[in-house]
C-alpha cells in the first residue's frame, strides 16, 4: 500500500532531477537468516529521496548512475551501494550487534517485554550469542557473555551458577530455569542448545518477582525456536566435532617414586610398619614394604632386594593413568531442523544427536532429542493454539576409573610404582585392601581369586544410566476484543531414569564382597552368605509434573497512555518416586539372582572380631511438591517517556505452614523508568538515547528441609524393647515462611551517536531477610539449635555492559565489555561456627561468622619457620608459638586471620569481534578478581610426608633455608596438630585473581545472496577453541587458581552449519 503511494511521489520528485535517472529495484534480506526485511529505509545518498521496503523486502526507486543508495534499518548495519549500471540491486543487511538491543524483546516466561518499556534488570543472549560457543549443554553457553552471571568453580558445586552473587545461606541456591514458559524440573543436560532461540536472565525484583517464591536466586528463561509465518519451509543442518585434551596426571607435583621408596625404607627401619604388619585385619602393605619384610625375615637376599627396588624406582603410575585411564574427549553433535509456516500454521521440527566420549576411558554419553512445535492462528487471528512435544533420551556410561579414587586401602594412597599392565598389555593386579600373602592363603583355602586388576575392572563393571524425558505443552489463547485476551497453558513433564550398575562375577567388587563374607568352619567347610556371581544394583527414579496456567492479558494505548497488564493463576504439582535395590549372585546371561540373609551378622573373613550384615542398598523415596500461585503485573507508560510497573505474586505450597499460606504477604516489586532522551528539553546530541531505571521489591526462596509442621523420622527397632521408634526432626514452626530477597536496582541505559558505544550501568543492593538459618535457642525449649527464618545478609554490586564499535568499515571491529561486582555480608547469624568449622568449611559455605561473607577464607596467623628447626610457627596469646595443640584447639574465631571471600567479587569479560567480508573472528578474555583460595602443600603426617605434595622438595633442610622457603622441615617427632596447623596457616592462602584467554571463535560464511549459484541459502564453517590459558594471575604458586586438581582442559571444535 505504502509503495503504491510513494512511487508516484518519487516520480514527481525525480522530475526535478537529472533526466538520466531510472528505476532501480531490488530486494533487501537479512544476512543472518536470509529472510526478507520489510520497512528498510532506502535513500539516495545526499538527498531526502527515499522509500521503505514492502512486506517482501522489495523496493524500487529512481536513481541515476552516479548515485549511491543507502540502506538503513534499525538493528542492522547501514549499507551503501553504488548504483552504477545496475537496475536490480539485491542487498543483504548484516545485524548490528551493538544496536541489536534496540529491538530486544525480553521474555519473562509470562509475557514478552520490549526493551523500551522495561524497568527491571535483564540480560539476554540471543540465538547468535547462544551459538557462539560449541557445547552439549545449554547453560554452559551463558558463561562470560551475560552480565552478572558467574559459574562457581572449586569448592562446593551445589550452586554451579550464581546470578549477582549468592542469595541464600542454606536453602536452594540455584537459579530457577524456565523453558518455554514453565519451570523445568529435569536435568538441563536434556536440552539441546541447537533448539534454543534465546536466553533471558532476570536479575532484579522487577524482572523476577513475577516468579515469586522461586525467584530469589534469579531466573533463567530459555525460549526454544518455533516456526515463523514469514518463510517457506527451511531445512537447517548443523554438525560439529570437539576434541579435548587428556587430563595431565602430572599437573599437581608429588613426591617422586625414588623418594617414595626411600621414605618407605626409612619408615620401615623406624618400625612404622610393625603395627600394621601385626594387625589382625591384614591391612595391605605396599610391595616395597613386603620386600623389606621378606628381606628382614631372610626370605629375600639383600642383592635381590636391591635389584627389585631398582626396577620399581623407574616406574610411575601416572604414566599408566595417562596410557590406560585417560583419553582425549571427543564430542560429536548433529542437529537437523525443518521449520516454516504460513498464515494459519507454523511449525518447527528438529532432531538432534550428540555423542560424547569423556576424558575417562569408559565414560560416554549420547543423547537424542526430538522436538516438534506447532502453532495455529484461527478465527481471523482471534484464537491461537499451540502444541509442542519435546523428547530426549540419553544413555550415560560411567565405567571409567578416576585415578583420584584409586587407593590401596581406605587409609593408604596408591603407591606410585604400581603398574596396570605388563609389556604385552595384559592387566596386572595391584595391591588392594589386604596383604598379598593373606589373599594367596585364602585363595588356597578355596576362596575366590582376590586380586584387583584395574584394567580388568574397567571391563567387568558396567554402570549405565538411561534416561528419557519429555515435555508436552499445549496452549490456547483467545482475543475477546483488541487489547484483551486470555490464554490457558498446560504442560506435562515426565522423566524416567534407570540406573543399572552391574558388577560381573569377575569384577573385584563382587569377588571381594563374596570373600569378605565367606564363613569357614573349623573343619574347613566354606559357606557363602553372599553367593558367588555378579552384583546388580538398580536405581530407578521417575518424576512427573503437571502445570496449568490461566492468564488474562490487557494491552491498550489511549493517546499518550499505554497500559500493559497481565493477571493469572497457576497450579503445579511435581512428584518424584525413586526405588533402589540390589541383587546378589546375579547372572547376567540368565538374569537370575539369589536371596541373601540381610539380618544375620556375619563374621568377616579378614578379621574374626568384626561382624557385619550383608550390605543392603534398598530404599525408596516419594516426594510431592505442590504450588498454588496468583500473580499480576502491570506497566503504565506515559508519552513514551515515563513507565511505572508493578508486579505481585502470592505462592502457596504444601511446604509452607498454614499461617504462611493464609496470611503470607505476596512478594511484590515496583519499578520506574524515564526515557530522558525523549524529553523535549534533551539536546545532548552525542547521547541520542538515555534512559534511567529504578526498581524495588522482593523475590522469594524456599528451603525444602524445613517445614511448618512437626516432623519425625521413624526407625526400625530400638535396642531395648525392639519396638519401632521415632525421632523429632523439626520442631513445630507455624510461622515458617519463605526467604525474602529485597532488591533495589538503579540503571542507566545509553547510546552514543553513530553507534560508537552503547550499554548500561546498574547498581544494586540485595538484602536477604528471613533467611533460613540456624539459631541457638534456650535448651529448656527442648532443643539447642533451631532452623528457621533467623538469618539475614546484605549485598551490593554493579553490572556494567559496554558495547563499542571501534572500526566500522569493510573490516569491522566490535568490543563487548562486561564488568560485574558482587559483595555479600552476613548481617545476622547467631549460631556462630567454631574455628575448626570455619577453617575447614568456611570457604565452601554453610559455616558462618556474622560480619563476614558466607564464603569466607580463614587461616591461622603465620610466624614463619623456626630458624633452628624449620618447624612452622604460629601465634598463641600474642606470642610466636609452636604449641600446635593450643593453637589448633583453642584459637577463637575472632583470632583467626580472615582473608576475605573465596568466590570472585569482581568478574567479567572482554569479547572482541572482527569481521571482514565472509570471515568473522571473535575471542573472549575473562577475568575473576577479589577472592582467595587455600592451596595444597606437603603434609608430613606421621609418615614423613610419604607420597605427599611436591612442596616436599622446597622444604626447609638447613639453617638459613627459612630465608627463601616457608615450607616446614620434616618434623623431628610426630605432632598430630602440626600438620593441620600448617595446612590451615596463612602462608598457604593465595589470591585467586586472574585473567584468562577463555576462547576464540572463527567462522567463514557463504550466503547465496553474495555467492549466487550455491546449492543452499547459507553455509558456514566454524572453529572454536576453549580454555586457551591463563594470561595473568596474582599467585605464582599454582598453574590455575580455578582448576587446581586437573587444569582447564583445552577443547578444539570444528563445525559446519548449512541452511537449505
Amino acid at each position: 500500500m505504502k509503495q503504491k503511494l510513494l512511487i508516484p511521489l518519487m516520480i514527481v520528485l525525480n522530475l526535478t532531477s537529472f533526466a538520466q535517472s531510472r528505476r532501480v529495484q531490488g530486494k533487501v534480506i537479512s544476512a543472518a537468516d536470509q529472510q526478507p526485511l520489510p520497512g528498510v529505509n532506502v535513500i539516495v545518498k545526499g538527498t531526502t529521496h527515499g522509500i521503505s521496503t514492502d512486506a517482501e523486502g522489495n523496493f524500487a526507486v529512481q536513481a541515476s548512475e552516479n548515485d549511491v543508495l543507502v540502506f538503513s534499518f534499525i538493528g542492522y548495519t547501514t549499507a551503501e551501494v553504488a548504483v552504477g549500471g545496475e537496475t536490480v540491486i539485491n542487498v543483504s543487511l548484516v545485524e548490528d550487534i551493538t544496536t541489536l538491543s534496540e529491538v530486544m524483546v525480553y521474555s519473562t516466561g509470562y509475557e514478552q517485554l520490549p526493551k523500551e518499556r522495561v524497568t527491571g534488570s535483564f540480560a539476554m543472549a540471543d540465538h547468535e550469542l547462544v551459538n557462539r560457543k560449541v557445547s552439549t549443554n545449554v547453560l554452559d553457553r551463558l558463561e562470560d557473555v551475560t552480565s552478572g552471571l558467574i559459574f562457581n568453580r572449586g569448592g562446593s558445586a551445589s550452586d554451579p551458577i550464581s546470578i549477582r552473587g549468592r542469595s541464600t545461606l542454606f536453602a536452594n541456591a540455584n537459579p530457577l530455569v524456565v523453558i518455554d514458559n514453565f519451570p523445568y524440573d529435569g536435568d538441563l543436560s536434556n536440552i539441546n542448545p541447537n533448539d534454543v532461540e534465546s536466553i533471558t536472565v532476570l536479575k532484579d525484583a522487577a524482572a523476577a518477582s513475577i516468579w515469586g517464591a522461586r525467584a530469589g536466586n534469579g531466573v533463567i528463561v530459555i525460549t526454544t525456536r518455533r516456526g515463523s509465518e514469514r518463510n517457506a519451509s527451511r531445512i537447517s543442518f548443523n554438525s560439529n566435532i570437539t576434541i579435548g585434551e587428556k587430563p595431565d596426571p602430572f599437573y599437581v607435583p608429588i613426591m617422586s617414586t625414588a623418594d617414595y621408596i626411600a621414605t618407605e625404607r626409612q619408615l620401615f627401619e623406624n618400625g612404622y610398619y610393625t603395627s600394621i604388619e601385626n594387625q589382625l585385619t591384614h591391612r595391605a602393605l605396599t610391595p616395597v614394604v613386603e620386600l623389606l619384610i621378606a628381606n628382614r625375615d631372610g626370605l629375600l637376599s639383600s642383592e635381590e632386594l636391591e635389584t627389585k627396588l631398582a626396577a620399581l624406582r623407574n616406574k610411575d603410575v601416572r604414566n599408566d593413568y595417562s596410557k590406560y585411564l585417560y583419553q582425549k574427549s571427543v564430542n560429536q553433535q548433529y542437529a537437523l531442523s525443518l521449520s516454516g509456516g504460513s498464515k494459519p500454521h507454523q511449525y518447527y521440527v528438529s532432531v538432534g544427536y550428540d555423542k560424547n566420549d569423556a576424558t575417562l576411558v569408559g565414560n560416554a554419553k549420547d543423547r537424542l532429542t526430538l522436538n516438534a512445535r506447532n502453532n495455529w492462528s484461527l478465527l481471523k487471528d482471534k484464537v491461537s493454539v499451540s502444541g509442542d512435544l519435546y523428547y530426549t533420551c540419553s544413555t550415560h556410561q560411567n565405567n571409567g576409573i578416576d585415578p583420584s579414587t584409586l587407593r590401596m586401602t581406605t587409609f593408604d594412597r596408591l603407591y606410585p610404582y604400581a603398574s596396570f599392565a605388563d609389556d604385552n598389555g595384559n592387566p596386572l593386579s595391584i595391591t588392594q585392601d589386604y596383604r598379598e600373602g593373606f589373599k594367596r592363603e585364602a585363595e588356597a583355602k578355596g576362596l575366590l581369586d582376590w586380586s584387583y586388576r584395574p584394567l580388568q575392572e574397567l571391563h567387568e563393571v558396567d554402570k549405565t544410566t538411561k534416561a528419557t524425558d519429555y515435555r508436552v505443552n499445549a496452549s490456547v489463547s483467545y482475543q475477546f476484543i483488541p487489547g484483551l485476551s486470555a490464554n490457558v497453558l498446560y504442560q506435562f513433564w515426565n522423566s524416567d531414569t534407570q540406573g543399572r550398575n552391574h558388577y560381573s562375577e569377575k569384577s573385584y567388587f563382587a569377588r571381594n564382597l563374596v570373600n569378605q563374607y565367606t564363613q569357614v568352619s573349623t573343619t574347613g567347610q566354606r559357606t557363602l552368605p553372599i553367593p558367588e556371581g555378579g552384583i546388580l544394583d538398580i536405581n530407578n527414579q521417575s518424576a512427573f509434573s503437571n502445570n496449568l496456567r490461566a492468564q488474562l492479558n490487557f494491552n491498550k494505548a489511549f493517546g499518550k497512555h499505554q497500559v500493559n497488564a497481565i493477571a493469572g493463576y497457576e497450579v503445579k504439582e511435581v512428584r518424584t518416586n525413586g526405588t533402589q535395590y540390589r541383587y546378589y549372585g546375579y547372572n547376567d546371561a540368565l538374569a537370575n539372582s539369589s536371596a541373601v540373609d540381610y539380618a544375620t551378622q556375619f563374621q568377616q573373613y579378614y578379621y574374626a572380631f568384626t561382624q557385619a550384615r550383608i550390605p543392603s542398598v534398598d530404599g525408596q523415596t516419594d516426594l510431592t511438591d505442590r504450588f498454588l500461585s496468583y500473580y499480576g503485573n502491570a506497566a503504565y507508560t506515559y508519552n513514551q517517556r515515563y513507565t511505572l510497573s508493578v508486579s505481585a505474586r502470592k505462592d502457596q505450597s504444601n511446604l509452607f505452614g498454614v499461617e504462611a499460606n493464609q496470611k503470607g504477604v505476596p512478594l511484590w516489586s515496583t519499578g520506574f523508568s524515564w526515557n530522558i532522551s525523549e524529553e523535549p528539553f534533551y539536546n545532548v546530541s552525542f547521547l541520542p538515547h538515555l534512559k534511567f531505571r529504578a526498581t524495588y521489591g522482593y523475590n522469594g526462596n524456599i528451603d525444602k528441609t524445613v517445614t511448618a509442621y512437626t516432623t519425625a523420622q521413624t526407625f526400625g527397632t530400638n535396642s531395648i524393647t525392639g519396638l519401632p521408634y521415632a525421632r523429632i526432626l523439626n520442631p513445630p514452626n507455624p510461622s515458617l515462611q519463605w526467604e525474602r530477597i529485597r532488591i533495589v536496582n538503579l540503571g542507566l541505559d545509553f547510546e552514543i551517536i553513530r553507534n560508537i558505544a552503547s550499554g548500561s550501568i546498574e547498581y544494586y543492593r540485595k538484602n536477604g531477610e528471613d533467611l533460613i538459618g540456624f539459631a541457638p535457642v534456650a535448651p529448656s525449649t527442648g532443643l539447642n539449635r533451631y532452623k528457621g527464618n533467623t538469618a539475614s545478609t546484605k549485598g551490593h554490586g554493579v553490572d556494567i555492559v559496554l558495547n563499542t564499535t571501534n572500526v566500522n568499515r569493510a573490516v569491522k571491529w566490535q568490543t563487548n565489555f562486561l564488568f560485574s561486582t558482587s559483595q555479600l555480608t552476613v548481617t545476622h547469624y547467631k549460631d556462630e561456627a567454631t574455628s575448626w568449622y570455619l577453617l575447614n568449611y568456611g570457604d565452601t559455605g554453610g559455616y558462618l561468622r556474622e560480619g563476614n561473607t558466607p564464603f569466607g577464607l580463614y587461616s591461622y596467623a603465620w610466624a614463619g619457620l623456626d630458624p633452628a628447626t624449620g618447624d612452622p610457627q604460629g601465634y598463641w596469646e600474642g606470642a610466636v608459638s609452636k604449641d600446635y595443640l593450643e593453637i589448633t584447639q583453642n584459637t577463637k574465631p575472632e583470632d583467626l586471620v580472615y582473608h576475605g571471600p573465596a568466590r570472585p567479587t569482581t568478574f567479567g569479560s572482554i569479547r572482541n569481534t572482527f569481521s571482514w567480508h565472509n570471515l568473522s573472528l571473535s575471542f573472549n578474555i575473562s577475568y575473576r578478581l577479589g577472592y582467595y583460595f587455600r592451596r595444597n602443600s606437603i603434609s608430613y603426617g606421621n609418615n614423613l610426608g610419604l607420597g605427599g605434595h611436591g612442596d616436599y622438595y622446597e622444604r626447609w633442610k638447613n639453617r638459613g633455608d627459612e630465608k627463601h622457603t616457608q615450607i616446614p622441615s620434616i618434623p623431628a617427632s610426630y605432632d598430630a596438630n602440626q600438620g593441620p596447623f600448617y595446612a590451615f596457616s596463612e602462608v598457604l592462602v593465595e589470591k585467586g585473581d586472574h585473567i584468562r584467554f577463555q576462547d576464540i571463535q572463527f567462522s567463514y560464511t557463504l550466503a547465496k545472496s553474495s555467492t549466487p549459484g550455491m546449492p543452499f541459502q547459507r553455509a558456514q564453517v566454524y572453529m572454536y577453541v576453549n580454555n586457551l590459558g591463563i594470561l595473568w594471575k596474582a599467585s605464582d604458586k599454582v598453574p590455575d587458581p580455578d582448576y587446581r586438581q586437573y587444569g582447564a582442559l583445552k577443547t578444539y571444535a570444528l563445525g559446519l552449519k548449512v541452511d537449505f
Partner: protein
Amino acid sequence: MKRVIILFTFLLCISSCSDDFLEKKSDKSIIVPTTYNDLQSLLDNNVDVFNMDPGLGFIGSDDYTIEEMYWQYLNTPTERNAYIWNTEIYEGETGYDWNAAYKQVFYSNVILEQLDRLDPSEAEINTWNTLRGSALFFRSMAFFNLLQLFASPYHANDLEGKPGIPIRLTADINAPITRASLRESYDQVIADLEEALALLPVHAAYKTRPSKTAAYGLLARIYLVMRDYEKAKVFSDSCLVHSSALMDYNQLDPAKARPIAQFNEEVIFHSTQTSYGIRVDAYVNVDLYASYDNNDLRKVIFVRNVGGKPVFRGWYTGSTRLFSGIATDEIYLTRAECFARLGDKDKALADLNLLLQNRCANGTFVPRAASTAEEALAIVLAERRKELLFRNTRWSDLRRLNAEVNFATPLTRTLNGAVYTLPPNDGRFVYPIPPDEILISGIPQNAR
C-alpha cells in the same frame, strides 16, 4: 464477557479445593506425627529421649569415690567439677542433664498437643488415654528430676520465695521462659501424675512404658522427697498392690558378669541414668561397702573385687548403665520409712525384713528388730543406702535428710591430698543452671 465469567468460575473451582491440595505430605519417609502409632513411636524412643534420667545426682552423692588418676581424665569438666562440689561446674559447656530432661518435656508437649487435636472414637479412647497418660508421666518425671538438681530441697513451710524451674507446657519454642516458684513446680509435677493415674493402664506391655503402677511408685518417691509420709505411704501401698515381687538373690548367679537381668520382676518402670564416664571408674564408698554383712548377698551381687577395690555391678538395667527407674525394693523401703516415721515400727520392720530375707544367703537371715519407731527409722535408712546403691536416690535422700539433725550428713572427699567438703544444707546442693540457658533465656541463676 460471558466467556470471562466462565473462565473465572473455572479458576474459582480450582482454588476452592486448594486446602486439600496443599496438605499433601511433601516427603513420605518423613512423618508428621499425627496418628496414634506415630505418637507411640515417639514415646518409645528410649534410644535418645525417654527412659533416661540425670546423672548429676549420682555424681554429687557419697555412694562412691574416684581416684585422682581417673578423675583428671574424665570426659567432661562437668563431671570433674561436680565430683568436688565446685561452685561453677560447666566451664562453658552445655548442661547434658538439663538438656536431656527438657527434651523429654518437649517431646511430651508435642504429643500432648497433637492428642488435643485428635478426636478419639469409642474404640480409640483407651489408646488416647494411655498416650496422654504416658506423656504426662514422662513430663512429670522430667520436671521432678530437674527439681532435684536445680531447685532447693522441698520444705513445706518455705516454698514461696524459692525459685523452681521453667515449667514448659507448650512445644512452641517461642513461648517465654521463666522460672516458676518451687510450689508451682511441685504442683505441676503432682498434677501431671494425678491425671496420668486416671489414664494409664495398671500394667504396661513393656517396662519402658509408663503404667498406673509406675505412676503410684513415682508418686511415692515424690511425696517422700516432699516429706509427706502419709501420702508416700498411701501411694507405696497402691503400687505394691499391683507389683510386689522381690527377687531372691539366692537365685542369682554371682559368677555372671551381670548377675541381675534387665526387666527383672522387681522392675516396675525401666529408666537409666545419663551415661557419664565417671561411673566406669568409680569405686563403691569403702565405708558403705564395709557395712554389708558377710552373709548379705548384695556384697557379692552388687560388687566385684577388682585389684582389692570394690567395683559396682549391681545394675538393674542388664547393661553397665546405672538404673534410675522404679523397682519394688525401693517402694518397700519407702513404705517402711513412712511406717517408721508415722510411728508404726512393726509394719516398718515387716516391710524391711521381707526385703532383707530375699537378700541374705539361705539360712542366715536374722530379722531386724527395734524397740522404738525412731530406732526402726534409723535401721530402715541404713538399709535404704545399702539397697539403693548407685540408683540415683541418694542425692535426693541427702537433700531431704539434711533437714533432720539426726540424719544430716556432712560429705567429704579427698583428692590428691586436698579435702573437699559439702556440709548439710549447703547452697551447692542446688546445681547451677547451665550457662547457655542463662545466656539465651535470661532466667536467674541459682545462688550457690
